[in-house]
Every structure is written in C-alpha cells, then in structure tokens.
C-alpha cells in the first residue's frame, strides 16, 4: 500500500485559498457566513465558481449544512472532525478522492465566531469524557495544554523551556507586524511584555495563548489536469499524514511531550521523498507557544528536548534561518477555534510569492501542520510551487 500512497504524491493541487471578508471581531457575521464568504473568495482566487464544486469538506458543521447554505449538491462529502487539524487532513482526503475519481473540484471550508460567541459559557458535560474533567475545572485547551507544558519543563528544564516559549511568542508577533490582516498587526511585543503578561494557567502566561477571533477560510483543490485551467500557479500536494493517539482526555496521551506529529511528519516526508532540510517554510499550528515547541520535536526537525536550542536567538523571526508561522500564527494573526486551515492559506501564499513585505526570498517547499483537540490529532502536508 505504501507504493500506492507514494504514487499520489503531486497528483492534486491547491488552486484557491482565502479567508472570509473580515477577521477579528466580526459580530455581524455568523460562523456559516464566514464559511460562505471564504468559499466564494477561494473559488474567485482559483477562477472557479460554486457550480464547479463536486466535493465538499468541512469540520464543525455537517457538510450538508454548508452545502445547503452555499447551494452546492456535492457527490463527495466529508465532515471529518478531529479538531483544528481537520482541514489539513481534508487535504489528504481530497487528494485521495480526486485520484479515485470521486470528485474533481474539492472545496474545504471553515468558519467560526470564537470571539463573538465567547459570551456563551462552556457548560461541560457535552462529551462522555467530560465527566472525568469538567467537574474538577479541567476544561478548555489552556488548562490541558499547560499540564503538558509542565511535564515538558520537568523533563527538559524550566528556564530553557520558558525562554523558548518567549522566543516563539516574540518571533511570531514580529511576523504579525508584517501582515495587515493580523489581529496584532499594529501591536509589537517585547520579551518583557511576554514575561510580564498575566497567568492564565501556570506555566502559561496570557502571551503563551492563541487569540480567540471570528474568522473563516477555504481551500480549493483539484486534479493536475483541471488545475491548468485555473488562474494561478497550482500548488501541488506532495505528502500527507494524519492520525491521533488519544481523545478528549489528555491524561490518556501516551507521552505528554510527544504529539502524533512524530508519525505524521515522517510519513508525509517519506511520501513526498523530501528531507527536513528541503523545507523552506514551516507553518505549525500554534494554539500555544508550547504547541510549536513540542511539534517541532515531534515532527523531527530536532530531537526530544532540543526544541529550546532549535528556536533560540529569534531564528524563527523575519530574517531568521528558520521562518516559522509567517502569517503571525494563531498567537498573533487569527485563531477562531480550529485554526489549522490558516496554516495552509499562508503556506500557499508564500509558495506563490504573494505575501508582500513578509515574502520569503526562497519558498519552494512548505510544510503545514495542524493539531487538534488536546494535542490529540495531527495532520501534516507538504506543498510545492515546483512544476
């Protein structure tokens, strides 16, 4: 089966990406509205229209509700939801579906009003596993991820971990300061700002935590043949990996310091026939600064515990040797809840050379990586602008 998998490398392309019309605080638009705006914007980006879409992918809602809202009657449908990595994983599914002949034009949509819905209190008890956590006040990502971060500190040193988290927060903000769409476009962050920000759930400062915004995004994927008829340079999907190793209870995670990226990273690279050194841009889901640290290690960019050295001295900032999260990431650009799709949007724009002031000198191959749930699921894709 490995050879069949490998034979799909480069056999579909992303031809359209876009966000919804407005990101940040958008109380006048519903989550479905963000899906719909982003879908039309991404199809415009591709030079295609709603009537071309025959494969529909989303997470959070059922695809049948997105289909109805947009007026699409797809003949391939996929509502796989494994948290924020879902939309990266949809790319892997689209690649397979297109090559199986199940659909030709795949539309992946996302939309959430994380900020404007925020007044709603999470009641807990919605999922069977919540009975073991919510009554204790163990609810939501910050508390759960903070426990994983504390474990990392124990294994690899508190001070160097703290410095690494600060490096990531500060470098990501520098990229956001170059992205007009970023929530913190106009607001700089110093190391002191980071260290002085309030505690959310120790060891997490406020500035370790992602934004909570309203936003949507969409991606259009099609066959290599059909891609020739679209507006822009197609971005080929070279490698994919997906999976998960626990669910809604982080206490059941096999190793709190290693995500399932340990599997999906190497598998995507193997499929693509690429090595880490070939990657010009890493777009890594940054729900927390700590998520980036453990993901870099899990994917294999560096060894366990080596992350703090890997990200030291602002190498991940503009001008640095390892460009990371050039949009400003979930930390400083936008994070409506399930952010994964936005890693792909930025990767495609960098590969096309569309990112203006923050454009990388060389960007031929990019990695986009989503994490979902409580470090539960991961999806990795490798993309290229090379023909």
């Amino acid at each position, binding site marked *: 089966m490995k050879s069949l998998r490998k034979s799909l490398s480069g056999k579909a392309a992303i031809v359209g990406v876009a966000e919804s019309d407005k990101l940040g605080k958008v109380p006048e638009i519903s989550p479905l509205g963000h899906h719909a705006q982003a879908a039309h914007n991404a199809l415009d980006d591709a030079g295609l229209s709603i009537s071309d879409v025959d494969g529909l992918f989303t997470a959070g809602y059922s695809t049948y509700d997105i289909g109805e809202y947009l007026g699409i009657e797809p003949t391939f449908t996929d509502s796989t939801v494994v948290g924020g990595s879902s939309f990266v994983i949809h790319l892997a599914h689209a690649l397979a579906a297109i090559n199986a002949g199940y659909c030709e034009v795949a539309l992946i949509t996302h939309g959430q009003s994380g900020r404007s819905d925020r007044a709603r209190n999470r009641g807990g*008890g919605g999922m069977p596993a919540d009975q073991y956590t919510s*009554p*204790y*006040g163990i609810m939501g990502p910050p508390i759960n991820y903070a*426990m994983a971060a*504390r474990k990392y500190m124990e294994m690899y040193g508190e001070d160097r971990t703290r410095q690494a988290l600060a490096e990531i927060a500060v470098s990501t903000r520098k990229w956001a300061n170059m992205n007009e769409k970023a929530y913190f476009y106009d607001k700089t962050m110093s190391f002191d700002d980071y260290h002085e920000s309030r505690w959310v*759930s120790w060891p997490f400062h406020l500035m370790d935590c992602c934004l909570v915004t309203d936003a949507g995004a969409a991606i259009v994927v099609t066959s290599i043949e059909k891609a020739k008829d679209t507006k822009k340079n197609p971005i080929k999907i070279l490698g994919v990996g997906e999976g998960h190793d626990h669910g809604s209870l982080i206490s059941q995670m096999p190793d709190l310091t290693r995500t399932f990226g340990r599997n999906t990273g190497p598998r995507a690279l193997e499929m693509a026939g690429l090595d880490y050194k070939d990657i010009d841009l890493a777009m890594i889901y940054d729900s927390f600064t700590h998520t980036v640290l453990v993901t870099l290690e899990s994917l294999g960019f560096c060894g366990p515990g080596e992350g703090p050295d890997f990200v030291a001295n602002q190498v991940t900032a503009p001008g640095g040797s390892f460009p990371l999260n050039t949009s400003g990431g979930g930390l400083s650009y936008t994070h409506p809840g399930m952010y994964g799709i936005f890693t792909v949007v930025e990767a495609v724009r960098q590969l096309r050379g569309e990112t203006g002031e923050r454009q990388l000198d060389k960007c031929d191959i990019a990695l986009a990586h989503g994490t979902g749930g409580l470090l539960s699921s991961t999806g990795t894709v490798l993309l290229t602008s090379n023909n």
Partner: protein
Amino acid sequence: MAEKIKPIPQPESDKYWEGANEGKLLLQKFGDHIQFYPRAVSTKDGSRDVEWIEASGKATLYTFTIVHQPPHPSFVDDVPYIAAIVTLEEGVNMPTRIIGIDPEPENLTLGMDLKLDFIDADGQKLPVFKPV
C-alpha cells in the same frame, strides 16, 4: 454563584461515580489489565469480563497546572487551584485536583507522593488527591 458542574455518567461509569459517593475510587480490571476510565470493553483485548477493584488511594503527581483564569463561572471562587494528572499505584493516569496545599509551583514536585481524598460537587463526591 453558578451551579457546580456534576459528572454526567454513562452506563459504564455509573459504578465509578456511585463508588466515589461511598468514598471509594473504583477501577476496572480485566484479567491482569487495569484501566482508567471505565469502558464497555478492555482496551487490551476487547474482553467484557470485568471485575471492579478499589484503588489503594496511593498516587504520585504526574503533572499539574495552576489555574488562574476560571474556565467556567462555577470556578470563580476556586481560582487559583491545582489541576493535575496523577499516576495511581495501580499504574493508570487520571485527571484530578490537588488539595491541601497552597497553589504555588514551588510547592509541587512531579513524582511527589499523594493520597486519595474526596471533595463534594453539590452532592456528588469527586476523587481528588492531597500530599501525604
């Protein structure tokens, strides 16, 4: 103050929560395989041949966080509090709270010995842990 969040048991976990109300932490045992949380089958081999055992109540601290921002209105009066994962003597990990100690990072060492206790959430007892 907002009403406390109570566990909503599934059929497989009724015994677990009834046990907690009797001051017992109950675990499922299938042959030599002990698991947390209760399920309809063994995670090892799918066995349905379940036996319930009472945990010794001895545990060690696996990891923790000190919660400053309440995740729900019912925890406003609780912050700061210690949310944790502990490793039971029986070898399984479970989420819980640590009580009986000031919520300061320097008071907590991973691996420290803990013992079982219970707190009350509006009539449902919850297993928690405190330093030995």
